[in-house]
């Protein structure tokens, strides 16, 4: 399998702070990778750099063979790189359906508005938002907006989907439903980079885990081995969590 996304030596600085330093990462087609790390480790920044929201100060980013480090955001999106925002970014005054229609029309390459609307309806159904379709996006609850983010990114027909804490704010039962949704998305063949603090989500979906800490990649490997890594426990999971996991027999 060839690499779908390849980061080499990516570095991003904000004023004095090095939010990403010398990141080397490659994602293969079709895999689900969990990205974890303490708050402020640089996870969102990594997504921002890949999608062109921020420009990397150094390093190269290759997607599907094309260098995208200096490409405009909308072009990157049309190449098939989709993401959700940790702080959700809907078009507030448009309805839920219109939101997704716009995504299908531009990023999804629909030929006409009508076609885009059909595609959007499909994605809404997929994400369980059909009964909210006529509501203005601003009136959704937080969870609703996260789902909308997901539907919008699906409408881009992504090859790479980066989910930035889409499950935050859901209660455990709802997380189960969302998990099922992610699994179904993965089944359609997209590569998924999953940023999550809910270990349950990560452990149940991803095979591979990447850990960021202070902007550096400190671990990359199979889930079980990364989670038992002493530095990861120290930096991220905390003693109690480790004990709980041990107790649960993971």
């Amino acid at each position: 399998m060839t690499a779908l996304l390849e980061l080499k030596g990516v570095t991003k600085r904000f004023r004095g702070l090095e939010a990403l330093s010398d990141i080397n990462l490659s994602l293969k087609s079709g895999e689900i990778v969990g990205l974890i790390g303490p708050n402020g480790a640089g996870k969102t920044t990594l997504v921002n750099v890949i999608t062109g929201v921020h420009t990397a100060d150094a390093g190269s980013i290759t997607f599907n063979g094309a260098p995208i480090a200096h490409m405009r955001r909308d072009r990157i999106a049309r190449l098939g790189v989709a993401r959700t925002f940790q702080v959700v970014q809907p078009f507030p005054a448009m309805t839920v359906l219109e939101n997704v229609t716009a995504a299908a029309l531009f990023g999804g390459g629909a030929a006409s508005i009508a076609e885009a609307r059909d595609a959007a309806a499909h994605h809404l159904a997929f994400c369980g938002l059909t009964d909210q379709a006529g509501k203005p996006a601003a009136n959704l609850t937080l969870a609703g907006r996260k789902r909308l983010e997901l539907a919008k990114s699906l409408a881009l027909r992504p090859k790479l989907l980066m989910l930035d804490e889409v499950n935050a704010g859901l209660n455990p039962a709802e997380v189960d439903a969302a998990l099922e949704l992610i699994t179904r998305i993965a089944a359609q063949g997209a590569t998924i980079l999953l940023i999550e603090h809910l270990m349950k989500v990560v452990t149940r979906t991803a095979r591979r885990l990447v850990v960021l800490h202070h902007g550096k990649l400190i671990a990359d490997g199979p889930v079980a081995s990364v989670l038992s890594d002493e530095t990861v426990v120290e930096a991220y999971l905390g003693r109690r969590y480790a004990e709980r996991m041990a107790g649960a027999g993971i």
Partner: protein
Amino acid sequence: MTGTLLKVEGLETGYGDIQVVWRADLEVRQGAITALIGSNGAGKTTLLRALSGLLPLRNGAIFVSGRDLAGASPQQFVEHGVAHVPEGRRLITGLSVHDNLMLGAYRRKDGKQAIRADLERMYALFPRLAERRRQDATTMSGGEQQMCAIARGLMAAPGLLLIDELSLGLAPAIVDQLVTTLERVRADGTSILLVEQDVGIALELADFVYVMDQGRTVRNGPADEIAADPSIIAAYMGT
């Protein structure tokens, strides 16, 4: 652990024409952590907004330390010792961590000395914030912001702290730390009303739990009792 700090009776509220909370009855006892759980869109955030004066009531009463605050402004709530850590943190862009924390003490009248002391207490409680005290608060990561928001709430020296979505977006280690911190806060005499999606954490932390569904408080009970209820586990705990 005796008196009632907050008492809510038959509260109804909503946004414009849309009624969201249909009937909420709730009591927070002095020195306790009370959790409010419920599925998405149940109206938890909406209820908290009403409890800090951001939304007008349609019906019902809110008593804080026995005083009726129905229809009071947010300032009055703050003055009566209710501080709200809102969903989404809502730190002020353009202000440093220090300035955000100072704003938490906006309504305090007990003098510079006391405020300074509390500020140092916050920095001790959250060393991360001390490191970042000059940084624009909203450029910090999510977890850092959550700490800042809680610290800002505490800066009001409140009797009651309302926290919406405590663990949202926080790394497990941080959540652990916050749980410990909140226990300390309670020990210092501040009561807490906590809205939390991670029901496991809520049940672990709280003394008493209310369950909200479709705008109504439908159940309540001591945390261990609720935690043992199979229907609650099925509805909110997942697998």
